[in-house]
């Protein structure tokens, strides 16, 4: 267990160093500041999504679900499309970045939380029912988004398309700071929940017997998930490829690898492992694509491809479900 973590740490370190120093042309001071900002953004997004996915899988007791199945990405695309539709591309571009970020974050975390709570209350606390209803609602939101997009002026639609992919090409330090202000406290809280999560993972019956009220834990975890995914998506755009379907495979890849490498259900080891793997996949993947292979393909496209295959594999290998 400890050895796997050391390897993960080393892998992350190599990825970071590779990302910062490989293939640098020009002023070091400029390059390092530029790259460090992007690096921080990638790590923030990766760790947020990894931790959110672990929490989500624990409270739903399901290894192939990720928070995006509940339509977080759909909410982002919906917000984006409706803003471009009402304000026009020019109006949308005129919105100050921090304001847009704050609006996106509030919208996604707020609506996500509202959705979770309403579904949880409506389903008498049945978390699977919540997930299923969430999936259907996600489809509804995607359809509405698709409808709005067909109403948008084709030239304005380009704005939507550009903003719909996860992007790490340029990150405003102000936005990075705002995202960190949300993500870091949420991560600290998630870390402090680690032992309670172990108990919750045993199932509602056993958790109650051990004095850990399952519903309270579920609600707290959902709150953290909303904040983490909301902040990550607002910072980078959705990690799944735009409008194509219910797939945030990034979280799935990361948690599946974490379970594979760390042969333990304890969140004290699972959470850091998933976070480190997320860093390696994003930073290492980006380094590989940009610096080594010199490809212009966006990383999410590759993640989708690998994630799709992994998803099928997990589905077919029944044990993992």
């Amino acid at each position: 267990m400890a050895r796997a973590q050391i390897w993960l740490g080393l892998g992350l370190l190599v990825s970071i160093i590779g990302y910062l120093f490989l293939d640098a042309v020009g002023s070091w001071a400029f390059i390092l500041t530029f790259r460090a900002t992007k690096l921080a953004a990638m790590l923030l997004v990766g760790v947020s999504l990894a931790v959110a996915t672990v929490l989500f899988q624990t409270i739903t007791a399901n290894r192939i679900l990720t928070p995006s199945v509940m339509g977080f990405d759909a909410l982002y695309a919906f917000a984006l499309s409706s803003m471009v539709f009402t304000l026009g591309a020019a109006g949308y571009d005129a919105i100050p970045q921090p304001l847009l970020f704050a609006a996106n974050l509030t919208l996604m975390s707020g609506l996500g939380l509202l959705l979770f709570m309403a579904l949880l209350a409506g389903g008498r606390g049945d978390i699977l029912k919540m997930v299923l209803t969430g999936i259907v609602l996600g489809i509804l939101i995607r359809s509405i988004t698709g409808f709005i997009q067909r109403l948008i002026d084709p030239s304005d639609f380009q704005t939507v398309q550009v903003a719909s992919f996860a992007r790490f090409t340029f990150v405003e330090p102000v936005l990075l700071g705002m995202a960190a202000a949300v993500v870091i406290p949420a991560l600290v809280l998630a870390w402090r929940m680690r032992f309670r999560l172990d108990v919750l993972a045993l199932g509602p019956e056993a958790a109650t017997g051990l004095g850990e009220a399952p519903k309270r834990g579920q609600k707290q975890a959902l709150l953290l998930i909303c904040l983490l995914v909301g902040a990550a998506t607002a910072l980078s755009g959705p990690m799944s490829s735009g409008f194509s379907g219910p797939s945030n495979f990034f979280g799935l890849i990361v948690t599946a690898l974490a379970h594979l490498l760390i042969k333990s259900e304890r969140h004290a080891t699972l959470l850091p492992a998933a976070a480190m793997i997320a860093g390696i996949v994003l930073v290492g993947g980006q380094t590989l694509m940009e610096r080594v292979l010199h490809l212009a393909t966006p990383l999410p496209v590759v993640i989708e491809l690998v994630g799709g295959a992994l998803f099928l594999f997990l589905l077919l290998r029944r044990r993992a479900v």
Partner: protein
Amino acid sequence: MISIRNVSHAIHGAPILHDISLDLPRGGVTALIGPNGAGKSTLLSLIARLVKLQSGAISVDELEVGKAADRVLAQHLAIMPQSLTVSARLRVGELVMMGRYPWHQGRPGAEDREIIAAALAKFALEPLRDRFLDALSGGQRQRALVAMAYAQGTDYLLLDEPLNNLDIAASRHLMGLLREMAEREGKSIVIVLHDINYAAAFADRIVVMSGGRVAADGAPGEIVNDGLLRDVFDTNAEVRLIDGKPVVLV
């Protein structure tokens, strides 16, 4: 003592329990039996706070269920869960350690480790300590779950049909362990059972439930007879006394 006062319960409008008042004194094994749908599992779930109390009150010693802090209650009352959600990647040793959670809150100390070692020894789980739960037989698995509840170190232990899917050897072994826990360590064990013969053989006291009410309550020898089977279970089975204990001929 577990005291149940005027507890009624309905699920989706259908009444399950009717104004039940019952005292389960400290010590010994108490078996809850009754036909399907009699409300015995519901009553146990209410005591275990798995289901929210709708009316009436239940208290365990001085702690009132629903009002006492969850952690404090978990130090007095353990539940052996019927099933676990995540089982594949949990080792037996880790599972039993989870039983100490109400005490160590995730940071086990030397005392917890001693108790775990004792529990593993007591339930003959030492050779299986590093086995994953999904690599155990049904009987071993139940034993691991009882060991976990035992490690919780509570005075009261509740079990809901733990003999489901167990063969006769595993069933007798498990009941023997519970009997021993009650006798040697003064634990109070409340167990929902399907099989009247197991209840009559291993319990000190039997509470018979029928249609959401307590139909009979007493020592096995006093209440298990032809009349009970006819009136409550609606079947004409014969009851014989063997060594002073009633046995239903099935």
